[in-house]
C-alpha cells in the first residue's frame, strides 16, 4: 500500500518539469486531484488498510496531497507571471513618438502686458477702470484743456463719427475726466485705465490706426512730481528688470503741467548706445506729468486742495520693446504659430 503511495509521489515528481503551459498543468491537476485522480483514488484505499495502519497511511496520503496541491499552485503562479511578462513585453511601445496635443489657448501679447501692468498697479492701490471707446469731444478734449482750435488736437488726428461732437477716443485720457467727475471733487483717486484708442494713421510697421494705451491717474492732497518719478521707477523696474534706470525729460501735454517724457535706460546695450536706443542709451516709454490745475477744476477738483499726477503708456511700444517685436501689426494679426510661444509663465 505504502509503496503505491510512494510510486504515485515519484511519478508526480517526475512529471513536474514537463509542465510548461496552463493546459498541461490543468490536465495534471485533474490526473492527480480530480474525482478519479490518482491521489483521490488513494483515499479510497483507506477502507482496505488495517486499523492499526490507518493513521500512518492517512498521514502519508495527506502529505502527498499537500505536496501535489502546493506544487501545482506554485507552478500555476509561475506560469501566470511568465505569461504576464510575455504579454507586457508584447505591449512595448515607442515612447519617443509625438504626444497627443493637449493645448491651452495663448493670450494676445498685448493683453498679457496689460495684465502684468494692472497687477502691479493694483498692488499699489490703483483700481482698474474702463471707459467707452466712442467718446464725446467734451471728455476726449475739452475737459483735458484741449479746447477747439488747440494745436495739440492736430497731432491727434481723430476719427469723428458725428460732426465735431462724437468721436473714437484718440487716447485713454477721457477716462481721467470721467473718473474725476465721478469722484465729485471729494475723494482721492488712484486708477489705471487700459483700452483701445484710435487715430487717423496709415498702418505700417510702427503706426496703427488702432492701438492700446494704459493711463494712470493719482489725485491726492500731497502728490508731487517726485512721487510720479518714484511710481514710474517702480513700473519700469517691474517691466524691464531691477537694473533698469529711468530719467525724466521736460515735455509738453495740455493736460499736465509740468509735463515730462519718461525714459528707461536701454536694456539692450545697458546704456552704451545701440540701434534700439538710436545711440542715446535711453528709450522713451511714456508721457506723464502733474495734472494741470485747469483740468482739475474743470473736472470738479479744487486745485488749491488737490494735487495729482497722470501717466500714459503705449502698450504696443512696451510689448515691442519687452519681447523684441518689430512690427506693430503683429498684435492685430494673430498668427497661431507665434502666439503659442506666449502661452507660458514668465519669471520675474
Amino acid at each position, binding site marked *: 500500500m505504502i509503496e503505491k503511495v510512494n510510486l504515485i509521489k515519484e511519478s508526480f515528481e517526475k512529471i513536474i518539469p514537463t509542465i510548461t503551459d496552463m493546459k498541461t498543468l490543468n490536465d495534471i491537476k485533474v490526473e492527480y486531484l480530480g474525482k478519479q485522480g490518482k491521489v483521490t483514488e488513494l483515499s479510497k484505499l483507506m477502507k482496505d488498510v488495517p486499523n492499526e495502519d490507518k493513521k500512518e497511511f492517512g498521514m502519508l496520503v495527506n502529505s502527498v496531497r499537500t505536496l501535489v496541491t502546493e506544487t501545482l499552485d506554485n507552478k500555476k503562479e509561475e506560469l501566470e507571471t511568465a505569461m504576464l511578462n510575455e504579454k507586457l513585453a508584447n505591449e512595448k511601445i515607442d515612447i519617443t513618438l*509625438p504626444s*497627443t*496635443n493637449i493645448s*491651452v*489657448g*495663448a*493670450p*494676445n501679447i498685448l*493683453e498679457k502686458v496689460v495684465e502684468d501692468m494692472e497687477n502691479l498697479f*493694483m*498692488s*499699489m*492701490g*490703483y*483700481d*482698474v*477702470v*474702463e471707459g467707452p*471707446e*466712442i467718446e464725446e469731444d467734451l471728455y476726449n478734449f475739452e475737459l483735458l484743456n484741449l479746447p477747439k482750435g488747440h*494745436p495739440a488736437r492736430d497731432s491727434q488726428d481723430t*476719427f*469723428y*463719427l*458725428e460732426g465735431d461732437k*462724437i468721436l*473714437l477716443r484718440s487716447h485713454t485720457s477721457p477716462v481721467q475726466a470721467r473718473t474725476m467727475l465721478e469722484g465729485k471733487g471729494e475723494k482721492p483717486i488712484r*486708477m489705471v485705465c487700459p483700452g*483701445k484708442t*484710435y487715430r487717423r494713421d496709415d498702418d505700417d510697421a510702427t503706426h496703427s*490706426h488702432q492701438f492700446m494705451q494704459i493711463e494712470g491717474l493719482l489725485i*491726492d492732497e*500731497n*502728490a*508731487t*512730481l*517726485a512721487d510720479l*518719478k*518714484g*511710481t514710474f521707477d517702480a513700473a519700469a523696474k517691474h517691466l524691464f528688470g531691477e537694473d533698469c534706470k529711468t*530719467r525724466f*525729460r*521736460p*515735455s*509738453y501735454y495740455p493736460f499736465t*503741467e*509740468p509735463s515730462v517724457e519718461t525714459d528707461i535706460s536701454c536694456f539692450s546695450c545697458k546704456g552704451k548706445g545701440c540701434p534700439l536706443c538710436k545711440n542715446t542709451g535711453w528709450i522713451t516709454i511714456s508721457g506723464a506729468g*502733474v495734472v*494741470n*490745475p*485747469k483740468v482739475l477744476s474743470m473736472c470738479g477738483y479744487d*486745485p488749491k486742495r488737490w*494735487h495729482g499726477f497722470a501717466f500714459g503708456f503705449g502698450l504696443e511700444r512696451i510689448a515691442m520693446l519687452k519681447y523684441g517685436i518689430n512690427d506693430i501689426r503683429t498684435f492685430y*494679426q*494673430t*498668427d*497661431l*504659430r507665434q502666439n*503659442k510661444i506666449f*502661452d507660458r509663465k514668465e519669471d520675474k
Partner: protein
Amino acid sequence: MISLNWVGDYVDIENENINELTDKITKFGVNIEKVISNNIEKLVIGHVEKVEKHPDSDHLNVCQVNLGDEVVQIVCGASNVREDLKVIVAKTGAVLPGNFEIKKSTIRGIESNGMICALFELGLEEKTEETYAKGITELPSDAQVGADPLKYLGISDTILELDVHKHHNNDCYYHIGFAYIVAAILNKKVKLPEVNIKEVNESINDHFKLDINTDKCSLYTARMVKNVKIGESPDFIKNRLVAAGMRPINNVVDISNYVMLEYGQPLHFFDKDKLGDKIVVRLAEDKEPIKTLDGKERVLSSEDIVITDGLKPVCLAGVMGGENTEVDENTKNILIESAIFDGINIRKTSSRHDLRSEASTRYGKGLNYEYTYEAINRAAYLLQEYAEGEVLKDTVVIDNVDKTPKIIEVKAKEINDILGIEISDNDMKNELERLGFVYNYDNETFNITIPPRRLDIESSANDIAEEIGCLYGYHNLVGTLPVQSQKKGEYKGNIGYRKQISKRLRALGLNEDKNYTLVPPSMASEFIYEDKKQIVLPNPMSLDKSVVRTTLIPSLLDTYEYNKKRHVKDINLYEISNTYYEDYKEETKIAVLMSGNYISNSWSNNNIKVDYYVIKGILENLLNYVGLNNRYSYERLEDNKYFHPGMSAKIFVDKEEIGVIGRVHPSISKDEIYVMEISMNKMNKQTKPLKFKEANKYPEIVKDVAFIVDKNISSEDVEKVIKKVGGRLLSDINVFDVYTGEKVKENEKQIAYSLTFTKEDRTLTEDEVMEKFNEIIKKVTETVPATLRDN
C-alpha cells in the same frame, strides 16, 4: 533747426564745450534729435611756399605747403594754386563729406600728403559749375597758418535738429528765443541784434494806406524800402539759411527768411509798384480766387484771411503770397509786412490748402507782438545794408493787441509742493533771474511778470514750477512713492468678469485674437443676426476702415483665413471686444471660432474633431462656469444665410436671446468651421452664491429607455417631457445613443436615455421607481409623440 554759430550772435557761447552744452540743453528739456557739426578734424590753414609743374602732367602742380608745424608736399590740380597763397589743407587722415578719407598717396610717381580744398569739397558750398571753376578756396593773407580755417571764416557751426513737436515753448522756433534758453542755462544775458536805420526824408504815409476789416488780424505793421538791388546774399546769410534748412534765393527773399529765423516773426515782402497804394486785410469771400506764388490757382473760403489791394487778394495771409505782387529780379520798391494773424485760422487755412510752411507753423503757435515791431525794423535795416535799399520814414501800424502783462502770484512752497523738491526763496529768486522773469517779492510771495515772448506760459503756479523744474533739472529729482494706499486696487465694472471668462476660454484651448474695430462695409454686413443699425464713418480714411463692427465673427474668420494660408490646421480662437450700434450703445461680445481638431495627435487616429457638439460644449462649459446651469436653452436658427440652416441655433438664457452658435454656411466657406457669439452684457446675470452640497448617501436606480421619434423632433422636446414627469425623483438624464438607419424608418431617429432616480432622504423602492418610469414612457409616447422601442 538751430545753428549754434547763429545763436552765438546773441549769447556768448564762444568758450563752451559743444558736447557739454548740448547735454545741458537736453536736460533743460529741449529734445535734440540730432547734433550735426561741420567740423572736420585735421583741417588747417596752410601757406603755399613753392609751386612746381608736375613732371608727368600738364595740369598738376607739386606744392610745398607750410602747415605751421611742418611743411608737406601736396600734388594739386587746381588752376589757381600759386606761390604765397593761404589755403585750406586737409591733412592725411582727414575725412571729407562722403566719407572720403585723405591718404598719403603717389600721384603719377610724385608723393602727395594731403589735399588743398575748395569749400564745396568740404560740403560748405553748393557744387556748381561756378564754384568748380573758381578752383581751390583762396584765404586772405592775414589767415594764420596752422589755425582752423572754418573758425577763421566764421562758418564753423554745430546744428541742432530739434524735435519741436513736443515743445510748447515758442523759443525753440527762432534763434533769439533759443538764445534765451541757452542764456538761462548758462546764466548769461541775451544781446539783441543791431538795427541802425538811416531813414530817407520821405514817409511811407505818402505812398500807402492800411485798413483792417477783420478781428483775425490783431496787429499789422508795414514799412517801405525803395530802390533795392536784387542780387546774391552775403555769405553769412546764405550759410545760416542753409544751416537752418532753407535754400538761399536772393538777397531780398533771404532777408525775409533770415529775420523770421532770427525773431520767429514771419514777414512778407510785396513789390510795392505791383501792389499799389493800399492794403485792406479782411476775410476772403467764399470761392474768391487767388493765384499763389507757387503758380497754383486757389479757391478761398470765408475762413481764410487775405491781404487785398482794396479789390483783389494779393496774399493768403500767413500762408503764401500772391503771384500778382511777387518780388522778382526787376523789383525796386518793397513794402514789408510784419503782422499777427489768428493762429487757428492760419492752421485751418494751411491744412485746407495743404500748404504748410515755416511761416504758417509759426503763426499757428502764436507770436510775440514785441518782435513784430523789432523784426520789421531789422528787415528794413538788412535791406539797407545788403540790398542797397533806402528806408522810408515811419511805420504804418494798426495795433489791437491786448498788452496786459501776465502776472503770476506764487510762493516757493507751492513750487515745492508741486515738484516734491526743497528750494528756498533765495534759490527761487536766482532761478527767476536766470529765466529773465521780472518779479516783486513781498511777504514770501512772488509776483512774476511773464515776458510777452512766452505765450506758452499760462497763469498758474504749475507753469512757474515747470520753468523752475527745468532749470533745477529733473535728473536731480529724487523719486518718492505716494503715501501707501489703504487697500489693494480692484477691477471695476465688468472688467473682472471679462478677465475670468477670457481665462476660462484659454483654459478650454482657445487662443485669444485681437482685431480692428473699424472694418470694410463688406465685412460689416456679414454674420448679422440682430436687427440693429451700424455706425458708418462720415469721413473715413479709407473704405476698409469705415464701419464700426457689431459682430466679431467676420474678424475671426479673417484670422482663420490668415492662419490657414500659413498651414495651421487646428484653428481655435476667441475674441472679447466692445461693439457699438448706431445709437452708440456699447455691447461687449464674446466670439469663438473652432475648426479642425480640438484634441489631436499627428500620427494616431486619437483625435477629437470639432463639430457642433464640441463648440456647444465650450459654450455650456462657459455658461456653467458663470453659474447659469439649467438656465439656457436653444432654438433652431434657420433663416440666416451665413449659418448652416441645419446646424445652427439661437442661444437663450432665462428666455432672453444672448447670441448664436453654429456652423458657417458652406456657401461662405467650404471648410468645416463652427462659430458662436454671445453678448457678455446679457450673459452677466445675477446668480446664486456658491455653496457646498453634500453628495447623496442613498443608492440610485438607473433605468434605460429608447424612443423612436420623427427626425424633426429635438432631443430637448423629449427631455422636457421626461423632466416634467420625472419631477424631483429624477436626478439625472443622459443621452447614451442616437441612431438613424435600417432599423428605423427613413424619417425617424432613435434616441436612448438613461434616467437616474434618487431621493435625498431615503432609499427608493423598485416599485415606486417603476411607477414613475412607466408614467414617463406613457407621457412621452403620447405627447411628443414617440414610440417606445421594444427590446
